[in-house]
């Protein structure tokens, strides 16, 4: 057995153990911490699968942002823990659930073992046409050129999710600020980190966005980083989340989608198709879309974590 296979085997065993623990542990807070660990381990698995872009996204969103969201929620739901635990289904239901889950796993395993060989792949088509985009990172080329419609719709989904979260606002707090008020502890560690890290985080985010054209990175990873820096400053009490009624905020939230649509429709007269880029201008246009989207994504992700308004404007 080679070293690499040994590493893969150990990583998979660890991932499965943490996943099982996340489901089985009684304390929900422990489960959420388990999930954060799981996200980071999974990012390693993505690296082993040669998908570094996906690894960055998984670490930032799966391991980072989702965990922040869940930790905030689990602390609020703590009083319900013991009442909920009493409703754990009986032995027979658990056994049936295990049989069902086991058969789904067995079916999927069968599919994995019988995947067609040689594997179908679109890599040659991507390699053939990537020169027309001026990009070096094939994943970015797929996201913003070959399958740009998916990415456009995803930007719309993000905004819709935020609108749906905001609809849960109690009537009297409509137009208010999202999330609770965080008190500033001038000499606290959190305030110190919230002053120290954001300048570094912003530089790294811009770098990740810029190299995303040619190397792993891009607007999602950069946007998540910016969102994390913003949340850090808010949670340390250094700044407040803006009231959701602000026009600049609403404009900024749809900036990425609007830029994407404008450039997409401009492709109809200029390049002959929706979301087609004129010859020679593909890269600058893609970077413009990515920069605008990064800002919108950062704001949307941050506000999704903060949830509906809980304070007046």
């Amino acid at each position, binding site marked *: 057995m080679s070293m690499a296979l040994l590493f893969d085997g150990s990583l998979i065993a660890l991932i499965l153990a943490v996943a099982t623990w996340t489901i089985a542990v009684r304390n*929900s807070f422990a489960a959420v911490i388990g999930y954060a660990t799981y996200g980071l381990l999974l990012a390693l698995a993505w690296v082993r699968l040669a998908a570094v872009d996906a690894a960055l996204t998984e670490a930032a969103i799966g391991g980072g942002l989702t965990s922040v969201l869940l930790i905030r*929620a689990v602390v*609020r739901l703590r009083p319900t823990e013991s009442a909920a635990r009493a409703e754990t289904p009986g032995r027979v239901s658990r056994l049936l659930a295990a049989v069902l889950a086991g058969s*789904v796993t067995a079916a*999927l395993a069968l599919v994995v073992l019988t995947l067609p060989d040689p594997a179908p792949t679109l*890599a040659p088509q991507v390699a053939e046409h990537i020169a027309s985009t001026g990009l070096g990172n094939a994943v970015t080329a797929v996201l913003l050129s070959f399958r740009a419609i998916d990415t456009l719709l995803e930007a719309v989904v993000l905004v819709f*999710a935020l609108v749906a979260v905001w609809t849960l606002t109690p009537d009297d707090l409509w137009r208010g600020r999202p999330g609770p008020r965080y008190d500033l502890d001038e000499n606290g560690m959190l305030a110190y980190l919230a002053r120290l890290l954001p300048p570094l985080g912003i530089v790294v985010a811009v770098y990740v966005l810029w190299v995303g054209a040619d190397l792993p990175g891009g607007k999602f990873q950069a946007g998540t980083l910016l969102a994390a820096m913003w949340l850090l400053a808010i949670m340390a009490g250094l700044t407040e989340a803006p009231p959701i009624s602000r026009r600049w905020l609403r404009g900024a939230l749809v900036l990425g989608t609007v830029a994407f649509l404008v450039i997409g429709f401009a492709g109809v007269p200029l390049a002959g198709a929706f979301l087609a880029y004129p010859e020679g201008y593909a890269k600058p246009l893609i970077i413009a879309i990515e920069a605008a989207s990064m800002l919108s994504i950062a704001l949307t992700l941050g506000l999704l974590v903060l949830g509906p308004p809980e304070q007046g404007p």
Partner: protein
Amino acid sequence: MTVTASTLYGLCAAALVGIGLYGLIVNPQPLRKILAFNLIGSGVFVIFGVVARRGAALGMGGDPVPQALVITGIVVAFSATALAVALVLRLHEMTGAATLTPADVGPPPAQ
């Protein structure tokens, strides 16, 4: 048949979907159900990753199309999770409910 690394990750993904499905059914707390659902989702994403890895060609480590779809998927899964968490918190705030069983739902709040 030789067991390659990508096959191992594929089997891992299949197990993750099963673990998540079991947790989704058995755990009564809505937050734990959301967690379990995310495990199922990540298992599906890893299967995409395995399909991408098997399609490696021309110096690319994997087929970039499924990889790009996974990135989109992770972001959409996050936004769905955020919405689900907001719903659970609002439900708890309004009714004090700990689980999703109907008997647990209290009277609607006074208007």
